[in-house]
């Protein structure tokens, strides 16, 4: 990337706020708030009861606290759990009816919803605070029988599917944040790909937090029926604010026989300022189940934002011969912290998993890879390959690798490789001697380091992600 371009993007590019009138639920967390959310979403009775059950459960569970990055106690009664632009109250039927201010917001974020429909071949669902504001390409997808819509819409229109699968991978009893999400989730995406259908385009959801003191509780559910294929990508940004905002999402994936789900994340929530003030707490539960034989779930994440990133996108490899993959780049700069990795639970025979994790720390940041490879008694000939590489820039940052391996089957093969390195002065000198300045040299070396993961991203996003990697580390060397 050119130096001048870097100069321009030094600050967090997406830090603006949209001045738009919003409808908010009163502050606080109680049964009435949950009823309010359920009512405004016009949910059926069962959904409300499900939420209330989760809420009841929440009263008896405690926030986990084993993670490496600690944070000040969150006052859950002081948060808003629902915020929506007023103009979305009567839901627009198509893009032309969407509030121009929202269209403009997404255009500023590089997601031109209107042209999007015509130009690029990617279907987008845009989620603003607690509601979905627009979904593109609906018609084309419907022709193939693919359902791609806000989950709030799916709860009304595809109630049977949602009822059957919601909470089937992440039960409401899972852990504190998953339970909290189950009680108060507001929007997110729902995808159903019918048997034998290969989704003809990338599906993408763009999450934006705008309102202050608001938690965002995204819920996404993707079901790939037998022999189907879908590639899904999510992107995230938020305005610059002094406070810490909570994003606690639940994402569930279900893959049946011979189906494949590819889930990519480019997470660029506001990371806080240089001194560590503000930023998003990104506490997310992502889990997929390879329910059928020969199914495959692949997670790719590029995590560059957030004050704290705490997530372990996982695969339950239930079907025989199923495959789980996890490709991750986690970049922490300034005072950012990350504790991320994956869990690969091998249940079926001949199940395979692959974990490639690249952690980069700069400034005062702290980056932890934490992963679990669990091979059950029946998972004969299961295979896992794990590679964790950490790169340190400067001497005030930290990198940690915490791999857990549980193997209960003697025919399984588990491999773990890990490296920790610093950007080598001699490598920089070599690049400099070939005419590359410091920024170009760092960018080249970092992109080389991340290459295996960047390659996994859909083409359109790989370029974007590469730029993001450059920007996130801007000024951290030399």
């Amino acid at each position, binding site marked *: 990337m050119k130096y001048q371009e870097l100069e321009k993007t030094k600050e967090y590019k997406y830090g603006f706020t949209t001045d738009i009138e919003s409808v908010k639920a009163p502050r606080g967390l109680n049964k009435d708030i949950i009823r309010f959310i359920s009512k405004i979403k016009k949910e059926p009775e069962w959904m409300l009861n499900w939420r209330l059950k989760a809420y009841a459960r929440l009263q008896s569970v405690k926030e986990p606290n084993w993670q490496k990055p600690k944070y000040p106690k969150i006052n859950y009664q002081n948060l808003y759990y629902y915020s929506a632009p007023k103009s979305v109250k009567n839901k627009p039927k198509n893009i032309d009816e969407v509030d121009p201010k929202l269209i403009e917001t997404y255009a500023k974020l590089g997601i031109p919803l209107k042209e999007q429909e015509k130009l690029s071949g990617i279907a987008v669902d845009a989620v603003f605070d607690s509601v979905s504001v627009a979904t593109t390409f609906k018609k084309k997808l419907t022709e193939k029988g693919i359902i791609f819509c806000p989950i709030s819409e799916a709860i009304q229109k595809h109630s049977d599917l949602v009822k059957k699968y919601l909470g089937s991978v992440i039960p409401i009893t899972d852990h504190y944040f998953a339970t909290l999400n189950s009680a108060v989730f507001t929007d997110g995406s729902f995808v159903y790909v019918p048997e034998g259908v290969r989704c003809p385009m990338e599906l993408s959801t763009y999450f934006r937090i705008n309102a202050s003191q608001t938690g965002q509780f995204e819920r996404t559910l993707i079901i790939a029926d037998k022999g189907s294929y879908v590639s899904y990508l999510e992107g995230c940004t938020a305005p610059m604010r002094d406070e810490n905002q909570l994003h606690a999402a639940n994402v569930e994936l279900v893959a049946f026989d011979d189906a494949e789900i590819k889930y990519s994340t480019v997470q660029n929530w506001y990371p806080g300022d240089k001194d560590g003030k503000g930023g998003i707490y990104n506490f997310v539960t992502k889990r997929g189940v390879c329910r059928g034989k020969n199914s495959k779930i692949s997670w790719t994440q590029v995590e560059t934002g957030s004050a704290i990133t705490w997530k372990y996108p996982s695969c339950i490899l239930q079907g025989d011969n199923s495959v789980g993959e996890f490709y991750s780049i986690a970049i922490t700069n300034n005072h950012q912290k990350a504790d991320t990795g994956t869990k690969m639970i091998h249940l079926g025979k001949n199940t395979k998993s692959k974990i490639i994790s690249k952690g980069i720390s700069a400034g005062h940041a702290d980056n932890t890879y934490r992963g679990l490879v669990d091979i059950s008694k029946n998972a004969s000939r299961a295979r896992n390959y794990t590679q964790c590489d950490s790169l340190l820039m400067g001497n005030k940052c930290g990198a940690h690798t915490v791999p857990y391996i549980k193997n209960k089957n003697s025919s399984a093969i588990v491999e773990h490789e890990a490296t920790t390195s610093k950007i080598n002065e001699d*490598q920089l000198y070599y690049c*400099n*001697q*070939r*005419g*590359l*300045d410091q920024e170009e040299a760092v960018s*080249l*070396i970092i992109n080389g380091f991340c290459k295996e993961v960047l390659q996994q991203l859909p083409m359109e996003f790989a370029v974007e992600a590469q730029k993001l990697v450059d920007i996130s580390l801007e000024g951290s060397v030399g």
Partner: protein
Amino acid sequence: MLEIKNLQVSINNKQIIKGLNLTIKPGELHAVMGPNGSGKSTLANVLSGKNGYEISGELNFNGKSLKKIPTEKRAQRGIFLAFQYPLEIPGVNTNNFLKTSLNSIRKAKGEKEIDSLSFLKLVKEKTSELGIDEKILSRQLNVGFSGGEKKKNEILQMKILDPNLSILDETDSGLDIDALRIIAKGVNSSRNKKKSFLVITHYQRLLDYIKPDFVHVLSDGKIVKTGCSELAEEVEKTGYKKLN
């Protein structure tokens, strides 16, 4: 082109180069020979602008002092160093690295960036000229390269970047005779009235293939003897000790 006057270089308070004078004119090829620890590689590093040295004396390139010029600017002005130990950069495609490098140098000169097609053509031309297998260019930069491949890659870069002053830091050491010929070919085919070379070597062997205009013997941080190519043969016969 290059003018070094009374150069003194220390690292960690230890003086390595102790008053070195050397002038290289356009079109000249100078060989610097010397025993281990005489300061040969330090000289190459100082010329290319590596950090960490304390330097006094004059260091001029095309009439301008180099002392405050960072490494990449020196490279952009046409100083090239073929490394004794080329660095491995995992994940970076060699072709891509070369193109990025060439373009940053072209940009600094105010020239247009080279497009992919012309670049590929240039690469093809230079690899076949040198007799280097094109395949190494699609591999990660120097990763898993043999010693010979690394050195050949340095010479290929030199050919493509087309610098004014090329410094070869013991490029010949550890090479078999075929690789040595490729290196020599790379240098000889680049020689003309405008291009200058500083070839640092332990042995006279390389100088059988590359005929220097001048040979300098470096010992304990100073040039102790200068002559024409016969000097190299003399050194080979009698060793460095006699020259002190």
